[in-house]
Every structure is written in C-alpha cells, then in structure tokens.
C-alpha cells in the first residue's frame, strides 16, 4: 500500500512540476501570475522531434531476501544469502517520442549483465577434532567438537534484456525525469558461485563434506549452481528456479547537453524497483551448528533484485 501511495505522489509531483514549468513567455520570465497555461502546441529546441539513441553505463545491483528460522542460530554461513550487491553493465537503444516540449514517452531496450556478491568472514560451523577426548561408549573416536571460523562467499551473475516504457517530463531547462514500468527478461541461467573456506590454517579441523556429498578433509569447497538454494553443502529440502521475467517501476533523472544541431548527450541516473521476486520461496535445514547449537529450518523468501543504473545516453534527432 505504501508503495502505491509513494508512486502516486511521485507521479503527481512530476506532472505538477511539468505544468508549472510551462508558464514562461517572452515578457514574463516567471509567467503570468495565477496563469497555468496548457500549451498543447509545443515546438522548440528540437524538443518536438523524435530521438533515436544509444546508451551505456553501469548497473549497481541490490539483492535481498528474507531468511526465517524456526530456531535461531548465530554465525551460520546461510546468513550470507540475506543481501548482496555489485556492479554490472547495461547497454541499450531508446526511442523518444515527444508529445510536447516538456513531455514525451521514451521506449528503451537494454542488454544487462548483472553481477552481485556477498561475503562474510564471521561465519562459523561445528567441526570435530579427532581423538582428543577419552574414548567411551558415547564417543568411540574420542572427538572434540569445536566452532570453526569460515569465510563464506556467494556471487551471482545473470544476463537479461529489459524493456521500459517511460514518461519523460522536463522539469526545468534540460533537466528531465523519467518514470514508468520496466520488464526484465532473463537470458540464460542465473549462475551463483558458492564458496566456503576454512579461515584458520591449523590442520586439526576441516570441512568434512563437499558440495557433491563426498566426505573428506577440505580447506575450501565451492560450486556453481543455477537454482536458488541454500549455501551449505547439505540440508536443502527444496530449491527454486529463477523467474524468467520480472516486472517493476523505474524512475530516473537526467540532463540533456546539446552537442550539435542534431545530437545530445544525457547522463542518466535511475532506480529500477522490481515488484516481482527473483525466485519463489524455498527451504533448507541449517546443520552448520547442529552439535553446539541446534539444527534450524530456514525459509528463504522475498528474493528481490533491484538496480541503480548510471548511464550516458547519446540521442539523435530525426
């Protein structure tokens, strides 16, 4: 509900600003007092011409999801899946169709490569030190279980095509805002690289299983996975495929610099807020602290991938 109120207020503010910007005339720099003109016949400064352009720049991605546990466990490597961020690239084409000198529509298609990651060095898993306790019936190997610090890293890479239909509103001079819906269509798999690495160099403890379920004494385990799942090598009870398409709202601000009679460059900053989740809810059992703490059932939900785009547009009037 709050999202809708915020969006409505934003659009109303932009439209009001656009109307107020129309008042100036050759006699009155600030317009006629009390007169808000409806200028339907706009024709000026190339603003009445259609524009075809290209753009390119950086895409700062923000990933977040909710991890809900039935019992709390501290220091679990699974917590690295709560949030991630990172830079990618975006290139695209756009078509700008003005309806007036201060309002128009911009249609844009982009190819995006998004990379975002998260890493934690404060994680811990329970590990055994073999044969240091007296052997008895309950501990025939004489093992000691101790907390072992590990570094956990996850890094996503995904390619997509995004299509946006935006309203472009000139606020003042060459400063403009864009706002409108955006759709992101996944191209190929989302690949997540997982890595858990033992931090301390002593050899008394180790990671005892790899991502293939093979027991051993590992300093580092890693994998690439193309479904949404937990990060620990065992314990997943469900996975989720990534959404093929997501939908959201984009709002941005840009400034137009004329570089000739038929061209301009326009730096843009815009935020893409996606209403669709990146993947559906899935679950796992977190056994990283099952001996010293407890086993926890984890539900992963609300996986969101939003982005801040910083691009340079080059437009050509025609």
């Amino acid at each position, binding site marked *: 509900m709050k999202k809708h109120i915020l969006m409505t207020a934003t659009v109303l503010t932009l439209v009001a600003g656009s109307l107020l910007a129309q008042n100036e*005339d*050759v*006699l009155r*720099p600030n317009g006629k007092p009390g007169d808000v003109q409806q200028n339907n*016949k706009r*024709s*000026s400064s*190339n603003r009445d011409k259609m524009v075809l352009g290209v753009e390119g720049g950086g895409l700062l991605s923000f990933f977040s999801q909710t991890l809900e546990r039935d019992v709390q466990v501290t220091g679990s490597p699974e917590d690295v899946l709560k949030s991630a961020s990172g830079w990618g690239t975006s290139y695209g084409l756009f078509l700008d169709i003005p309806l007036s000198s201060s309002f128009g529509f911009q249609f844009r298609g982009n190819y995006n490569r998004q990379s975002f990651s998260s890493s934690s060095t404060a994680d811990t898993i329970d590990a055994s030190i073999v044969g240091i306790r007296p052997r008895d019936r309950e501990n025939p190997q004489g093992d000691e279980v101790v907390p072992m610090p590990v570094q956990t890293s996850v890094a996503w890479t995904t390619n997509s095509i995004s299509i946006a239909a935006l309203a472009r509103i000139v606020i003042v001079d060459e400063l403009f805002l864009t706002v409108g819906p955006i759709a992101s269509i996944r191209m190929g798999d989302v690949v997540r690289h997982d890595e858990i690495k033992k931090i301390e160099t002593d050899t008394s403890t180790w990671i005892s299983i790899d991502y293939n379920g093979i027991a051993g004494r590992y300093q580092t385990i890693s994998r690439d996975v193309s479904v949404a799942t937990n990060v620990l090598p065992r314990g997943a009870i469900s996975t989720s495929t990534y959404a093929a398409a997501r939908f959201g709202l984009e709002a941005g601000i840009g400034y137009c610099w*004329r570089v000739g009679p038929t061209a301009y460059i326009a730096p843009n900053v815009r935020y893409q807020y996606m209403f669709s989740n990146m993947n559906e809810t899935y679950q796992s059992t977190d056994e990283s602290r099952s001996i010293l703490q407890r086993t926890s059932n984890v539900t992963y939900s609300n996986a969101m991938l939003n982005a801040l785009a910083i691009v340079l547009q080059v437009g050509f009037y025609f």
Partner: protein
Amino acid sequence: MNSLRLSAFLMFFVACTAFAQNIRIVPVDHNSSNDDFALAPTNHGRLVYFTSNRSGEQQIYSMERTSTGWSEPDKVSGKVNSATHVGTCALTTDGQFMVFAGYEHSVDGAGRTDLYSATRENGKFKTITNLAALNSSFYDSQPTLSADGRTMLFVSDRTGGAGKTDIYLSTWSGKEWSAPKQVTGVNSASSEMSPVLASDGRTLYFASDRQGGKGGFDVYVAKLAGYDATNIRPVGEPINTLADELFYTSIPNSDQAYFTRATASGDYDKFMAVPNPFPSDPVVLVEGIVRDSITRAPFGSAMSITDLSTGKSIATLHSDDETGRYYVTLVPGRVYSITSSRNGYMFHSERYEVPPSAKGSTVQKDIDLIPLSSGKTGSLLVFFDNDKSELKPESMPELERVIELMRENVSLKVRFEGHTDDKGSDDYNLKLSQRRAEAVRDYVTAAGIDSSRFEASGFGKKNPIASATTEDARAMNRRVEMRIISTGK
C-alpha cells in the same frame, strides 16, 4: 467608500498632471482583448512590429501606417513565429534585420527564452538564427538594437546580475556579438525590463519595478555611453501610473512615443504619448530606393555606410528585395560614404556630408546601379590631395571594392578615367588626370589582378560633370571614373 474616493482623487490628479504637461495618451489602433505590447517601429516609423497573444500564444505582428491610419495587423509569416511564444522584437532602421525572443522555438535554443535573429529576404524573414553568444540557459528576452544595428541591449535573469531581471549590452564586431555585460547604473535588486535604445544611440528607455515608482513597472530614461547609463530619471506622469508601463519607444525626429501599459482588464495594450516628454536627440533620416539605372526596376542590394572621418564602417544594411527601399539614420555634422552593390552591377559609392543644420530632417537619396553589361561609367570614391596624384588612405575601401568586383567577375575589363577641375592649364590637367587614373590602376594591379584587364586614361578638364565654378562643383569634377570596356560575355 474610501477606495472610491482614493481612486477618484488619483484619476483627478493624473488628469490634472496630464493637462498641465499637455501630454495626450491615446491607444494605438488594433489593440485586442489580449496582450498587445512591445511596439517596435522601423522604416522611419512607417512600419511597426508588435507582440500579441490574440491567437492564444505570443506572436509577432506588423502593421503599416497609411494615410488613413494603421493597417490591419498581419502575423509575420514564416518560421519566425514557429514557437510557443515569440515576441519583443527590434529591427534595424532598414527593417531588414530583426532580433526577437522565442520561448521553445523550432530553431534550437540554449535554454529557456532565447534571443534570435532573422533576415528579411524577398519580403519574408528567413535565416532564423539562435544568438548563442548572447543566450544563457536562463531567460534572455526583450532585445533592442541601436539604429546602426551594432549595439544590442536585452534583459536576462541569468546568475550574476543585480537581481531578478537585468539589462545587458553586447556589441557587433562585424563578425560576432561580444560577450554581454551588464549595463552599469540601471540594474537594481528589482526587475529591469524592456530596454529601448533610441535612434540617437544615447537615449535609453527602460522599465523597472524598483521602489520609488508610481506602481508596478514604470518607465525611466537614461543617457547611455558605452556600458554606463547615467542621468536616470522616471518619465513621470501621465505616462507612469499605478499600472505597469513598459517598452517606451521614441519615434525619431518626432514628438511621439509609443509605450505599453497594463489596462484595467488585466491585459497589456499599446499606447502613444504626444508630445514625448523625453525625446531622443534629432538625427538625419536618409531614405531612398535602389534601382537599375536603365530599367528603373527596384531591387535589394547590400549597402554600407562608412564614416569617412574615421574610416570605420558604421552600418551595413540592405535595401528591400521587393521595393528597393532603404532607410538609414545618420548623425549630423559628419561626412559619410554610402555604398550599394549587387551582383551584375557596378557598385555605387557616394560621399555624403551631413551638415549640423540637417539635424531633424529627412533626406531622400535614390541610388541607381549601373549594369555591368551597359558599358557606362561610374564614379569612384577616391581622394587625392590638391594637385597630387597619390591616393589618400580614405580611398582604400573604395579600391578594395574595385578589387572585389574584378575578382567576382573574372572576364571583366575596365578603364579608369581621370578628370580634373577647371583650374590650371589643359596640358597640366591632362597629365595630372592621367597620373591619377594610373594610380588607381596600379593599386588594383598590385592586388594580383591581371594588368591586361585595366586601362588608364586622363581626360583633364574636358568632361566636367558640374558646369559651375564653385568649390563644390570643382570638387565634383575632380574624380576618377570606372568604365566597363568588356564583360567578356
């Protein structure tokens, strides 16, 4: 009730003041129920342009003064008016060059309201140009031009000003407009608007809503020298009132002034004040028709005015393509050359002395251009000291025109013919006139033009063009003429 009394008192006071100064304020014809403002006269007041939003958007209109009054306003055709708002124009005296303000014009701009120029060609304003050197990303509007078209003042609310809108000045170098600077002395923390530079180039009218006025915008008058305005005074009642008054324009050599006033219905209308309480200094208005010397058909031609005392070109103008008419404003007490040129014709140059006594007069001076194909002669405006054959420096602009003509017409062959006055012997004058003709030929040949295209002959005192023996007549007879021998066609 009190406000009624106050209004009645104010009206009575204004009426009394007007009567005391005997200044009549009358509306100019064809005001509409919308804004009609910024009346800009040209062609010595016979044609005016003004701004009106009678069609919904501010556009430029023109109307002519006829024997029966003002003609119906015509919206200026062509691309000038292709914008959301266009107006507050100013024109050179010849009516061939216009500067105006456009908000969201179809010709690309620098920001908000911008300054533009347009040139009249074949009866229409074309070549719309954004005056990028003057415009900012802020509001730039309300331009005014000096009579010679070489000084422009305008209003801007750009940063760095004294406050709100300020008046800026730029000068034309012959190639480009200088970076605009604030006019010192006029700008205040309030809004200064609607500068109008009178035909004398010194009297500046502007409007301001500064404290101490009658109310709203009032008209002020100042003396302008360079970028400095001094002796600033309000024009007073009955022109300034509680309402807005702007765009005060003095008609040259006349007791009339136009201005704009906000009316009770809330729109702006154009008015005339008679007599003008602050007229500009009288000038000499020169006008005429440029035409073919044989067919008498009028046509457009490039013209330039040079102050011979300084050698500086002071104005470039253009006679109208359709009517051949030209208009120029000159300052009395100086000597000028007026030159007119057109492709296919021998250029025409004429020395024109404007005596101080000519102040306030209008002079008719038609110019006949000789077709190159006619084989006729035209006088060259070259100068020699008495009894000498060395060219004086003030001859150089004319000789450069000869060089240009020869370069543009590569098959043209001409003969320079020297003539003297009636003083001295025939033999001496024959030799002197020959030397003078050869001096012209040698100068032109030195510019790299093939010497075979020139001949030089002296005729002594045999062919006077003025038969009298006065000094003026003798001066006219001491001359070098250029005769077309062959066009090569």
